[in-house]
């Protein structure tokens, strides 16, 4: 496993992850999931974390999907599915999120 992938892998979260309580792990996972949902959702992409723990299934609005191993590879794969680069600083996306549903 590469260092990039490790950030999102169980062992790669390092000692802090190994020593974390179940509640802390749940909080971290839920927070990460919320962040990914908001970023990917802005581009019409949904994701599901597969049981492997560091692997994600990404799906776009037309049903196109891809499996990605490691959070570092999510954004490039999401860009291909979305047909545009994922830009967390995009002003239009920030405006739409700030204005709410």
């Amino acid at each position: 496993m590469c260092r990039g992938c490790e950030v999102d892998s169980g062992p790669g979260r390092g000692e802090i992850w190994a020593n974390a309580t179940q509640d802390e792990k749940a909080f971290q996972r839920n927070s990460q999931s919320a962040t990914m949902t908001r970023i990917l959702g802005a581009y019409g992409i949904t994701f599901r974390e597969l049981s492997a723990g560091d692997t994600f299934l990404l799906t776009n609005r037309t049903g196109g999907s891809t499996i990605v191993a490691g959070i570092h590879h999510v954004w490039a794969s999401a860009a291909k599915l979305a047909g545009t680069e994922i830009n967390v600083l995009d002003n239009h996306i920030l405006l739409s999120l700030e204005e709410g549903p």
Partner: protein
Amino acid sequence: MTVTGSLTRPLIILTGDLGSGKTSGLPFLAEQLGSQMPYFVVNEVGASDRFVGAFGIPRSRLSLLPGGCVCCVKPEELIALLNDLVERPHSEFDSLIVETSGLADPATILQFLSSQLKLTHQLKIKSLVYFLDAGSDRDAGYLESQDLTSLAVADVCVIAKTDLVSQETCDALVEAVSAANPTVDIFQQRREGDKVVVGVIRTGEMGRATRPLPTLATGHAGAADHSRVGVLNFELPFGTSWLALSTWLIALLHTPEGGVLRVKAAIPYSRGWVTLNGVGTIVFPPDSSDFSHGHERPLGTLVVIGNGLSQDHMLRSLRAFVSSDITTMHA
């Protein structure tokens, strides 16, 4: 080759003016930065290796790159050398220290190193050290354009040759450096008799707000080639999810033409602090330190360093994707 986390070694990059004392301070600074058995890569614009041996650096842990600056003339040679070195066993050295020529631009070096996938997997940039020559003829309290752009991406500043200037001059330089980048750790290097002594002057405060860059010394304003390099600071609420933040940071570092060179964060949580460190498109696994905050719930800090960054965009994005309670740090 299989790459695992255990193979990662810290990389320390030294920059600073020609003759600012980088080579003479190498072994002492390595010790201060926690490296027990560093390997030294020394780049010289000139071609002499005579000086290096004189400062007690063992030949078995030394490679020279003479005859050109690594940031513009010899980047491929540096990359080839580093690729070779990371294949060597940990028993040979525990960290890499790259001393650049006095002409090198640290932002450029960071950029091309971060584009090397293998190296970013096997080396973790621990510190970018900038040597500031207190004995040069800069006006007291003023920094030059190269100082400012180098300090913007530095973690450590060594004010060298403080034995050659008055205490007032030294204090003024410390204040100027601290104003240019409040997060930087400031050391001094001075000669006491036959010895070179390196000691801490001030520890950088991740929690201090960035101030406007100090005024350039008269006559140097036109030389600010990297004047868009800036440092953004944000306050993170106690208990901010480090995993959510690292996920956002990875997305940020993948943002096309985002201009981000480095990110670092310190996040307090119930058992201590979590630190994140990223360069290029890589955010490294977090480090942690366990201790009790007692009844206090301190704020954490996120520092983003790069070219042409917008504080407003960055803050809005952090609030939208990580936590709506994140704020800009105020001076």
